């Protein structure tokens, strides 16, 4: 319910004619907070002209008895699916103490934001997202009093070219830069943008059509300047992009680096830096004196550090606050991973239309969860059709599942028809992982990107050490690693690989194990994925005479109590130990068996979830690069920095 206004005060939706006075209201507040009046009517008109924004229903102005504007708010329900609703609001500074005004605006925002609920997926979390400047303590207190929580901080950074010496762009080998061509590059840019930002905070996977509509809206604005939109390409493919504006709000002599991104396959090659230097050079040629941009302070790829290295400095901070309107599955990237709003166990359902949606391994953003159900659902005339066309990305963990399923299909004499992804980087990634090397599945594009270690069968216990060496060698070829974490990872691999013959089957014979493993270099870190299609943990533990009511209970006993199928006290506990080490490394661990998934990451902690069933065990580790001593600058040239080992304590013997 919206809070009533005092006598004489009124409210109404804004009209385009109100852009001037709403801008003035916003500037009045900003001037009080930080002494600047940066906003112009055209900026707010851009928001209001968005095709999904309706001033009549999405805005509210509160007017004093003398007709002056004292408060304004709007809700922007512009995403598809509408799971994050964005709130804009401002209050005239002389009304800061008017509790009724804040309550009126926030109650209205809350009520209007809930309109999206019927349109959103039934299981999705819905949140209201609002921003404020770090200096505006009044707004922060008000947000918190209305149930918002501070979730993220963004820095506004600035460079003035006269204060620094600009470097020319140093493009990575094979990269060329060209201007964006409106109407030609639209779709390719949307795909590249999704690819680059998929693991960024706030990212929502929208249909291409929705992204295109949004892009075209911004391209139609007056401040679109094609010369300031540049694409870094390798061949015909967009590797990175940088979209700039010629004028920053309140600073017409500074440009804005509005959107800059590098796709994961081109990370750590200096492309982001080159794009920035290129943008600065273009600005400078035009006589623009400097540039500003906004960056997520927790950007997992180290963007703030890069910006500092090119000479940018923080000038202020903006805070993002979030209020959960309805709990559910979070479709929005948080902390660089897709987070859950609830620690409670939940059941994740897969449906044919959401094929390969993230269900059990959020760290990798998009995995092959629910394939089994999907396969059942899409059987056509006796054939099994696996529709991968909409897949945008897949991690080793998911590919391991796919590989297992393909083997099962082969063994059962069934034909598995695969409709390949249409997203070129995904195809290359799957090729690199060896997915399309089997007869009939070879993809036409021979340009295969290198994975650290493609999917590799674990079929001979006697060959496990050779296999471990092979995985390690691939990692060693890519980076120079610190010995300590490297050797720890080797220990992990030895234990995890041999678990397949030792624990995954009733006979203890490796011939029944059918295990596979893969390793890849992700932006999050090194990913090791292992799977078997054995009897699963619950059944395995039953061999020691213990009965567990659920897969979750069995998984809990193994991960938290170190239980093993063997009564011998020296057996087991390795997964418990690995889990502990991964936690200490701020890494991510996913262990799936039957209906249960244990998932731990540094932001969500660890819990066990109910998921679509899988026969056997799947394990995925994500170890951050810094654990191995790989830093951003080091990884560009393949060298790692080393850290001195801590001292050790020894007792002296009697004679020494």
């Amino acid at each position, binding site marked *: 319910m919206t809070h009533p206004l005092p006598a004489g005060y009124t409210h109404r939706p804004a009209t385009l004619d109100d852009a001037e006075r709403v801008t003035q209201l916003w500037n009045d507040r900003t001037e009080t907070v930080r002494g600047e009046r940066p906003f112009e009517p055209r900026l707010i008109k851009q928001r209001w002209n968005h095709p999904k924004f309706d001033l009549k229903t999405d805005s509210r102005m509160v007017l004093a008895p003398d007709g002056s504007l004292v408060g304004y708010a709007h809700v922007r329900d512009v995403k598809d699916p509408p799971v994050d609703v964005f709130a804009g609001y401002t209050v005239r500074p002389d009304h800061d103490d008017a509790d009724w005004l804040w309550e009126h605006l926030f109650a209205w925002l809350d009520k209007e934001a809930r309109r999206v609920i019927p349109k959103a997926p039934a299981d999705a979390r819905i949140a209201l997202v609002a921003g404020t400047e770090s200096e505006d303590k009044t707004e922060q207190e008000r947000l918190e009093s209305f149930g918002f929580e501070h979730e993220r901080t963004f820095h506004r950074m600035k460079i003035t070219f006269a204060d620094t010496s600009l470097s020319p762009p140093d493009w990575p080998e094979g990269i060329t830069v060209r201007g964006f061509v409106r109407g030609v590059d639209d779709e390719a840019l949307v795909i590249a943008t999704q690819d680059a930002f998929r693991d960024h905070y706030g990212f929502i996977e929208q249909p291409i059509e929705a992204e295109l509509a949004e892009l075209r809206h911004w391209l139609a604005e007056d401040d679109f300047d094609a010369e300031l939109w540049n694409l870094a390409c390798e061949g015909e493919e967009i590797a990175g992009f940088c979209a700039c504006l010629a004028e920053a709000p309140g600073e017409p002599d500074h440009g804005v680096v509005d959107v800059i991104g590098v796709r994961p396959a081109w990370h750590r090659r200096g492309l982001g830096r080159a794009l920035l230097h290129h943008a600065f050079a273009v600005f400078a040629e035009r006589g623009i004196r400097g540039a500003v941009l906004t960056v997520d302070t927790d950007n997992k790829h180290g963007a703030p550090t890069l910006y500092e290295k090119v000479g940018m400095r923080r000038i202020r901070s903006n805070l993002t606050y979030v209020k959960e309107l309805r709990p559910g599955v979070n479709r929005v990237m948080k902390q660089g991973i897709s987070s859950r709003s609830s620690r409670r166990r939940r059941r994740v359902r897969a449906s044919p239309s959401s094929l390969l949606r993230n269900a059990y391994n959020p760290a990798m953003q998009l995995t092959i969860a629910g394939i089994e159900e999907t396969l059942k659902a899409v059987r056509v005339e006796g054939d099994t059709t696996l529709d991968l066309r909409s897949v945008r990305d897949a991690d080793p963990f998911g590919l391991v599942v796919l590989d297992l399923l393909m083997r099962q299909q082969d063994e059962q004499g069934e034909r598995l028809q695969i409709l390949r992804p249409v997203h070129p980087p995904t195809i290359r990634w799957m090729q690199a992982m060896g997915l399309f090397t089997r007869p009939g599945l070879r993809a036409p594009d021979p340009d295969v990107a290198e994975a650290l270690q493609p999917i590799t069968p674990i079929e001979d216990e006697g060959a496990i*050490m050779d296999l*471990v060496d092979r995985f390690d060698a691939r990692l060693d070829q890519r980076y120079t690693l610190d010995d300590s974490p490297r050797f720890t990872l080797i220990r992990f691999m*030895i*234990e995890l690989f041999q678990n397949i013959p030792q624990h995954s089957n009733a006979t203890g014979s490796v011939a029944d194990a059918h295990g596979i493993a893969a390793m890849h270099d992700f932006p999050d870190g090194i990913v090791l994925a292992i799977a078997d299609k054995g009897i699963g943990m619950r059944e395995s533990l039953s061999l020691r005479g213990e009965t567990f009511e659920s897969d979750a209970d069995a998984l809990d006993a193994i991960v938290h109590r170190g239980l093993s199928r063997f009564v011998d006290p020296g057996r087991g506990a*390795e997964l418990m*130990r690995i889990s502990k080490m991964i936690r200490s490394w701020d890494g991510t661990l996913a262990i799936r068996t039957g209906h249960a998934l244990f998932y731990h990451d540094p932001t969500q902690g660890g819990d066990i979830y109910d998921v679509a069933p899988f026969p056997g065990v799947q394990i995925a580790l994500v170890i951050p690069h810094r654990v191995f001593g790989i830093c951003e600058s080091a990884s560009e040239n393949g060298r790692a920095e080393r850290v001195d080992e801590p001292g050790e*304590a020894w007792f002296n013997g009697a004679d020494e």
Partner: protein
Amino acid sequence: MNREVFQVSQFGRRVGTRSEGEAARAKLLEVLQALPDDGQLVVDLEGVEVLAGSFADELISKSLGLLVSGVYGDRTMVVSSPSEELTEGLSDKLTQRNLAMLCLQRPTGRKWRIVGQLADPHIETLQLIFDRGETTAKALAEILGIPPNACHQRLKRLVELRLILQDRVGASAPKTLYQFRPIL
């Protein structure tokens, strides 16, 4: 004291799986058996980069378990490791089996630490025995400031684990007198 060094690196720089550890144990036990009754086997990890817990459990923990059970007389076994990190997996496995052993910095050295599970009071007592050389329970109890029975319990555990040796030095009914000495 007869000391024999058993090089784990003969099985590789990175070891390994349970089945490999099991095969290696057969070799180790042959060497242990060939030692004189008061001999000591030093399991040397020099040259090893990675010692997986499974391999360590099969090779070392299980061998130590046999030794502690008494089937190899008064023989003792220690491990020598150039780094603490290398023995992490071994230490975990010994802890799971409620065992502990001395770990030397070098095979011929005398600097030691404990790998596996041993309570702090026992380590304190062990340190004292190493400092004093041969000693009695009574003397130790006085230094430690604990009742004789408590001291006996600690010594019993250390002897069980073959972390110290006890020598019968006489009997004055109804008690048998022992001296205790370090194994290094």
